[in-house]
């Protein structure tokens, strides 16, 4: 069994990012492995720990610094990693084409991708990768089992959940509920030093895969919405204020 887990490096959910003139300044923000991708890494490790002989390869496409996120996966227990080094911010479709090239070379039975990428909140990477590979795909998976040459997954749909059986190889997108990702242990952090992290330039990988080393969509304009606070203070005694708060939450914010 061979599993490829796709990783992205994204700002920590609690990171402070500065937005100015349509761009984000990430300097100073803590960057981490995307939480959604971590479920895939964890699931791959658990499959191996259940006794199936498994090679786990982490694969990421991103700037030089993305290597830090890859090292986290190596420290969690992944065997080796491939890093497609890219200074271009690829969109999901372009990135999927590039990644598909490496996946084809690796020829795994299973590919895990986070259900959603925390940076641009897109859920497209998994499906686009499956499309580029011509493989079946299950998204938003919360449960997964194997049976000779197939996997059975339970995943979320609008009205609840659905259980599917897919032939392998397949692409599975992961999400919260699938497992509880582990912390890398100190011994594994030290061991990870000796694992292979192969860096390949985007241009080479794209050329070999017959994919363009650039965005698939043209970005005309982008704007970052800056929300200002309302700065409302509710007056009156606790009861009046609470009643008013509930009214606002229900009628204005529509969260109740």
């Amino acid at each position, binding site marked *: 069994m061979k599993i490829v887990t796709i990783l992205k490096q994204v700002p920590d959910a609690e990171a402070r990012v500065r937005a100015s003139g349509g761009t984000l300044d990430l300097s100073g923000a*803590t960057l*981490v492995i995307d939480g959604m991708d971590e479920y895939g890494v964890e699931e791959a490790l658990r499959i191996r720990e259940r006794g199936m002989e498994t090679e786990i390869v982490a694969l990421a496409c991103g700037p030089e610094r993305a290597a*830090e996120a890859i*090292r*986290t996966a190596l*420290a969690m227990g992944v065997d080796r990693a491939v890093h497609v080094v890219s200074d271009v911010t690829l969109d999901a479709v372009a990135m999927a084409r590039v990644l598909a090239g490496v996946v084809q070379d690796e020829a795994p039975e299973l590919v895990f991708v986070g259900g959603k990428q925390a940076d641009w909140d897109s859920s497209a990477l998994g499906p686009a990768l499956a499309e580029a590979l011509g493989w079946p795909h299950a998204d938003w998976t919360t449960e997964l089992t194997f049976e000779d040459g197939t996997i059975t997954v339970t995943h979320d749909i609008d009205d609840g959940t659905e259980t599917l059986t897919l032939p392998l190889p397949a692409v599975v997108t992961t999400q919260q509920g699938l497992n509880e990702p582990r*912390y*890398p*242990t*100190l*011994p594994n*952090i*030290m061991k*990870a*030093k000796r694992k292979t992290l192969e860096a390949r330039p985007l241009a080479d990988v794209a050329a070999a895969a017959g994919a363009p080393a650039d965005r698939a969509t043209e970005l005309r304009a982008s704007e970052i919405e800056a929300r200002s606070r309302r700065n409302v203070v509710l007056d009156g005694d606790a009861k009046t204020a609470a009643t008013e708060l509930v009214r606002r939450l229900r009628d204005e914010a529509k969260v109740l």
Partner: protein
Amino acid sequence: MIDFELSDEQKQIQSMARAFAREHVLPHAAAWDRETRYPEEVVEAAAELGLLNVGVPEAVGGLGLGMLDEIVIAEELAYACMGFYTILMASDLGLTPIVLAGTAEQQRRFLEPLTTQARLAAFALSEPDNGSDASGLRTQARFEGDEVVLDGTKMWISNGEQASVIVVFATVDVQSGHKGTVAVVVEGGTPGLEANPIHGKLGQRASPTAELVLRGVRVPSANVLGEVGDGFKIAMRTLDRTRVPVAAGSVGVAQRALDEAISYASTRQAFGGPITRFQAIQFKLADMKIGLETARWMTYRAAWLIDRGLPHTEASAIAKCYASDVAFKAAEEALHVHGGYGYVDEFPVGKLMRDVKLNQIYEGTNEIQRVVIARGLMR
């Protein structure tokens, strides 16, 4: 060549320790403090990640980590709860004499078991009647055949009740000063060893502290580290190293104090706006930052000297003294920035101050650090 960058592994260690501390330590710290509770299960979780007893050498099953690695962890854990970190710190304090002065056989016998299970070590130097003046210790060591018999009382021993390995400092002759001192490894549960928990601590209540009474405690003389006369030296060489983690813990507390002060000050309104508008508040924050950064780099430098095998007595004394003074001041200022709210336990700043007061006292009070520094200057 100067390089202020952590290695890739150190960054990984830092983010793991931070994630663990923020998730498993910080949210519970107030309750442990309130209930004076030793959080055994969280110590076990830390051990599973490899965060406990990081000083054990590679040859006997440890990870071969350096002091820089250790203090990266220290800062993160102490940020969440200094009391919790003291449990791990005191265990490393307890195993350090064995690392520095133990034979290969002693290291295998005493240190290896500390890596396979969540077991603690302890360091028993202080006594009811002497702390700073450690060479005045009274605990008696008597050699009988191939055994050593220990009698006396040790005071303030962190992990004293829980430890499976305790290094006890004693003397074969109270009159002979340093020359009579010995360091003896006593295993927890040895007959004649009694641990009495100490109650009513001002802070660091997650960390258990005990009085150890030794009545005819017999151990093989193969448990003696070095020779008779080495005890005091081993204790001092140990503290020369382990003061650096005390400094790092202090830096963690100082960082927490600053973060809490900023977060409170930016939301607290007075005179029609947040109190961060006042330069008096801004200057407090700036001063905390000045202390924090300088203490952090002094601590890193002391660790760097240790990792390179260079003389570090003075640097570790400076780091310990300075960082704990800075951290106490930062905690006090953070409390002040909270006004009346700082004075009640609804906010964590009061605990920071109570906790970090101890960093100015243990492993040699800050007066003793100055004694150490001055002694070097006069030589």
